[in-house]
């Protein structure tokens, strides 16, 4: 039972705060000999598996590390291109770690804006009057909860599907935002939140939510 991440989106759809609190990573490290029986391709500055799913390595997984050293985008730790390195038989046997690619900050920004639009479309396509936007989105690996305030700020929490008490957590995050970000005289509205007290209190609130499962009234 865990809370994976928190996103705060401003009125215009821009991401102003992001916290990854728990990231369960499905990773697989294996030793390979030449020739590699997986097909790798370069996509978006990462090396992804295009074909050849086996043993926990799925299509879409990225190359995370070679011989224990993390890769840097499409280059190895030494600065050589990963595809070129894995193409020459002299470098084998080689141990490669595959896993789900981590999101870069740019991607998080884009996903936050995408969610902002989807939230609005969810309200437009409603078959009932007076519907809000998407408040809860359910998948088999996570549940996304969203709370939109009257001023248009959206607090988005990604959590395990079985985690309870996220609604009160969202209200609590709103409280923490108004206490430590809005009341901070050096914070400008709609701008990225860089307030230490906000970070600290948010992390505390996430811990309490994970342990207790719910907040008491008026806490």
């Amino acid at each position, binding site marked *: 039972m865990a809370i*994976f991440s928190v996103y705060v989106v401003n009125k215009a759809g821009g991401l102003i705060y992001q916290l990854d609190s728990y*990231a*369960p*990573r*499905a990773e697989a490290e294996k030793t390979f000999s030449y020739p590699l029986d997986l097909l790798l391709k370069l996509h978006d500055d990462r090396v992804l598996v295009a074909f050849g799913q086996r043993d926990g390595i*799925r299509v*879409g997984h990225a190359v995370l590390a070679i011989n224990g050293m993390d890769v840097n985008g499409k280059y190895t730790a030494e600065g050589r291109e990963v595809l070129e390195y894995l193409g020459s038989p002299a470098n084998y046997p080689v141990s490669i770690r595959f896993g*789900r690619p981590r*999101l870069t900050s740019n*991607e998080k920004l884009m*996903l936050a804006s*995408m*969610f902002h*639009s*989807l939230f609005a*479309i*969810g*309200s*437009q*396509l*409603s*078959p*009932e*009057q*007076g*519907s*809000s*936007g*998407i*408040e*809860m*989105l*359910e*998948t*088999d*690996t*996570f549940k*996304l909860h969203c709370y939109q305030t009257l001023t248009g700020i959206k607090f988005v929490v*990604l959590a395990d599907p079985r985690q309870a008490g996220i609604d009160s957590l969202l209200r609590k995050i709103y409280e923490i935002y108004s206490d430590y970000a809005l009341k901070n005289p050096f914070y400008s509205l709609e701008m990225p939140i860089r307030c230490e007290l906000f970070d600290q209190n948010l992390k505390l609130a996430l811990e309490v939510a994970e342990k207790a499962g719910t907040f008491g009234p008026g806490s």
Partner: protein
Amino acid sequence: MTVHNLYLFDRNGVCLHYSEWHRKKQAGIPKEEEYKLMYGMLFSIRSFVSKMSPLDMKDGFLAFQTSRYKLHYYETPTGIKVVMNTDLGVGPIRDVLHHIYSALYVELVVKNPLCPLGQTVQSELFRSRLDSYIRSLPFFSARAG
């Protein structure tokens, strides 16, 4: 507890079927555009969900809910998407959507040599069977309110 409407899309975004039972608010745009908007929204949600997910997904996006309605989604490996809007009291109905695909769409449309695939379903049998199936569901109540 009620069902508002149902959409059926194929893998190219063509709306194969749409029916509504209790819909109080129209989208304010022509039906064709509404189908495209719905398909586009679902396409974006699927892409969003596959990027955001911390683990590898098996079933993918299942449902979303707002303050007034819940949208249930089911996609087959061939790209046929069954989308149902219900009110909030309805739990997971993946098996219902699967039944709509396997026992209604596949049986009455795919296996019908006179039904061309890839376009809106004209079959009256499909429409009436789907309607009676939805009306027979335990969470469908015929009250107009």
